[in-house]
């Protein structure tokens, strides 16, 4: 790395810091200088206790987040890894929210909560994607799915406790505004372990670039290095989250930019990433301050950085080379019995019947009887819509998993539900009297059209990356809206968590019809889905026109996803888990898998509908969030089971 680049970056950092101080205050330089020694006016008080700590915090946190991301990228050898894309930020945030909601009296220290939550999330991502696969797309798929899941967990918690959570929402959005030096002083001593450890880690991390096996052969204790590095990265990121909430992108962008500038050795990369992180955060905060002066609402820093970083992330996704996943050497043990489809049919029907007839009366007692006409008219549309969504997600998930040859693919990663949510946001922002459904589905249609245009040109893995980029952009925009903490934001939160209680009979019937038609079409295309199992080149050699088939299958999955997400919002994990569950239950051929997965989907969502009505009676939790939670837990149980069998 050349010296001029370093000095240039350092110069830019100090310039931006100076600009950052000046943009907020009306004081002249002389008055500012005086304020440092002796405060004489209110303006000077504000300067010393608001502007200066904000600048200091921006510089420190920018460096901290960049280091966290840089360490994770070096460790996983994945150019797109970061606390944001691996789901650990969401884990930390979720832990803090849950602790605040469930045990508000305990006052647990935030940084340890954040560390615990992010450690849990990282463990889950590692188990999901495979610890040796963290360099590949799989890690990002698992991380994004986890992001969505933890998002719905936090959403449930927030909705059940909306009094407390209103302040939480504002806090969680990552704003750098300060009113004294407390956070800066809190932060500084906690950074000490990082400053001591990082110089020691540089050389082993350099060795790790050979690959973990070669590094181990060269005498490196890879396990110990991985544990120390990831703990350090998560600790740093947890500090940032505890101090200001989630500010995404910096941790991803800064190390990636450092690499683009030619800093490949760990020491260079981390050092330059730290400077770039400070620069990015200062720049974003300057934009946020400037916009807040000109807008009626306060713009949190994280939203500003999301708006800057989202497009860059999408560009990076399309540009950076990413290793494809290695073949899984262990192989999955599958059951050998043929599927008893009839039995599963009966079981699903029984569950549906049970969910249809049970409920609670006004006093909260269980009531199992055929509902009267009034109640039934309220109950059947939401149940039908939920079942149709379950079926549709299962089918769309199966199509994508076969198309990508990757068991972690799922429709919520396509970016279509992100598009729907963005459309919904814009609709709320414009505030017209038009139905929000119109906005959400047009958002989804735009993404779907873009996908179909890209499909013949880009490999499916890239398309999924694009979806991940879009989802991150959405998160930033969401925080912007949620930060306002008004009625609109709760309406949006409700929709995002997949609630069904506003479903009309027409909507339910339309959704079921769409799902049945598209499902029928995919059943007919079973042969093409099977062909994709050979890989695209060989499928072509056997006679498949791959680009056309890719567009068609994407269109099928996309339409399903569109129909569902324009009504329910993004539903995590369901489309990922159900097709795999069908395999575990013994489905061998594609047709069996399709039938079984959609049956389980319908039954599961029917059950979730029942639970959403009864568990927290008289309040209701959205079906979608509940079903995502169930599927996520199923996945964890399944993973634990596999671990035990291997051990």
């Amino acid at each position, binding site marked *: 790395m050349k010296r001029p680049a370093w000095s240039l970056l350092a110069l830019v950092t100090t310039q931006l810091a100076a600009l950052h101080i000046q943009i907020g205050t009306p004081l002249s330089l002389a008055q500012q200088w005086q304020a440092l020694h002796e405060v004489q006016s209110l303006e000077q008080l504000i300067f010393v206790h608001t502007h200066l700590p904000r600048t200091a915090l921006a510089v420190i946190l920018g460096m901290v987040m960049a280091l966290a991301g840089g360490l994770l990228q070096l460790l996983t050898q994945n150019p797109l890894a970061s606390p944001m894309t691996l789901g650990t930020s969401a884990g930390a945030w979720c832990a803090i929210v849950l602790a605040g909601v469930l045990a508000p009296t305990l006052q647990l220290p935030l940084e340890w909560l954040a560390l615990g939550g992010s450690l849990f999330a990282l463990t889950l991502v590692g188990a999901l994607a495979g610890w040796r696969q963290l360099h590949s797309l799989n890690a990002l798929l698992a991380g994004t799915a986890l992001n969505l899941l933890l998002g719905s967990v936090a959403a449930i918690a927030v909705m059940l406790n909306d009094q407390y959570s209103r302040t939480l929402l504002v806090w969680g959005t990552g704003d750098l505004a300060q009113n004294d030096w407390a956070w800066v002083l809190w932060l500084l001593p906690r950074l000490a372990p990082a400053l001591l450890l990082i110089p020691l880690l540089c050389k082993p991390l350099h060795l790790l670039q050979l690959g973990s096996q070669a590094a181990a052969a060269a005498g490196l204790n890879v396990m110990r290095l991985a544990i120390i590095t990831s703990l350090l990265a998560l600790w740093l990121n947890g500090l940032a989250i505890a101090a200001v909430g989630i500010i995404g992108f910096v941790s991803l962008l800064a190390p990636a930019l450092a690499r683009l500038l030619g800093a490949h050795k760990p020491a260079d990369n981390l050092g330059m990433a730290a400077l770039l992180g400070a620069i990015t955060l200062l720049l974003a905060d300057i934009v946020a301050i400037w916009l807040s002066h000109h807008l009626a609402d306060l713009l949190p820093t994280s939203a500003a950085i999301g708006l800057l970083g989202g497009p860059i992330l999408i560009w990076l996704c399309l540009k950076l080379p990413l290793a494809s996943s290695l073949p899984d050497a262990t192989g999955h043990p599958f059951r050998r019995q043929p599927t008893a489809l009839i039995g599963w049919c009966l079981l699903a029907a029984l569950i549906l019947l049970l969910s249809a007839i049970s409920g609670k009366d006004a006093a909260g007692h269980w009531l199992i009887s055929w509902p009267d006409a009034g109640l039934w008219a309220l109950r059947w549309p939401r149940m039908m819509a939920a079942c149709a969504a379950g079926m549709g997600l299962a089918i769309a998930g199966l199509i994508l998993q076969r198309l990508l040859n990757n068991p972690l693919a799922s429709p919520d990663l396509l970016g279509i539900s992100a598009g729907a949510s963005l459309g919904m946001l814009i609709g709320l922002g414009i505030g017209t009297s038009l139905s929000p459904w119109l906005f959400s589905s047009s958002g989804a249609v735009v993404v779907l059209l873009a996908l179909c245009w890209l499909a013949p040109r880009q490999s499916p893995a890239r398309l999924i990356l694009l979806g991940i980029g879009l989802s991150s952009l959405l998160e930033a925009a969401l925080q912007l809206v949620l930060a306002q903490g008004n009625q609109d934001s709760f309406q949006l939160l409700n929709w995002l968590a997949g609630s069904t209680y506003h479903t009309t009979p027409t909507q339910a019937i339309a959704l079921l019809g769409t799902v049945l038609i598209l499902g029928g079409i995919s059943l007919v295309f079973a042969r093409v889905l099977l062909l994709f199992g050979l890989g695209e080149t060989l499928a072509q050699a056997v*006679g498949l026109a791959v680009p056309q088939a890719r567009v068609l299958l994407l269109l099928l999955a996309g339409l399903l996803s569109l129909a569902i997400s324009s009504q329910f919002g993004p539903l995590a994990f369901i489309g990922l888990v159900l097709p795999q569950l069908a395999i575990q239950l013994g489905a061998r051929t594609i047709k069996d898998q399709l039938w079984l997965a959609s049956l389980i989907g319908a039954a599961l969502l029917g059950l979730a509908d029942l639970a959403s009505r009864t568990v927290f009676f008289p309040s209701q939790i959205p079906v979608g969030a509940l079903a995502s939670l169930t599927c996520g837990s199923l996945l964890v149980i399944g993973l634990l089971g596999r671990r035990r069998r291997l051990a």
Partner: protein
Amino acid sequence: MFQLQKLKIARQGRTLLQINQLNLPPHGLTVILGHNGSGKSTLLKVLAGQLPSDEGQVLLQGRPIATYAPRELAKQIAFMPQQIPQPALMQVRELVELGRFAWRGWLARWQENDKERITAAMQQADVSHLAEHALDEISGGERQRAWLAMLLAQDAQMLLLDEPSSALDLAHQYQLMALLQRLVSTQSCAVVAILHDLNLALRYADRIIALQAGQIWFDGSPAQLLAHPQLDDLYGIELDILARPGKHAVAVVA
């Protein structure tokens, strides 16, 4: 069947393949030999239509190969890659059925003659007993034979095989070559195979093409290759030819 003219493939300034003129007729068992990196697999990929040529022409039945739709092409040529994928959960029978895709397309049901072809192909490749097994639970050699069964079901006029015997045990190597020889002699279909085993090639091939550094170094019958004065240059190692009365001559490393 194939006509290659002034073909050139280059990557990053390095010429991988340069062939002035090569014709492959729709019959006979042709073996491609050559050292590592000599361009064998590249040539096969060009013939399979998976790699467009940078210069020159590849004509199949007098038509540029790039103008064929995938299904048309798959009716003419069937391709076995060096690395056979192992998709989870796909049964051997399902794989062999996919060989009929070129003839039936996306939607049409399998006809009676499709089923006959599938059964016959599995018998020929000796994988009937594995029909219900998944591809990821059988051995590498069995997988190669299953793939061969799919190629046979494809009913193409020419089979392109990239090291079809690499994972086979000794007996199955000879069985495979005997099967290919039978196919060539009875069904008027042609086989082009890459092999590493010189003796296997000498014994079964009708024609041997040897590549060196991307260029054709030898093109002729096995007997002509044995009589080649610079045979040692083929792999850059000294070879002895052991003539055995009444049997095939064998080449061994001196």
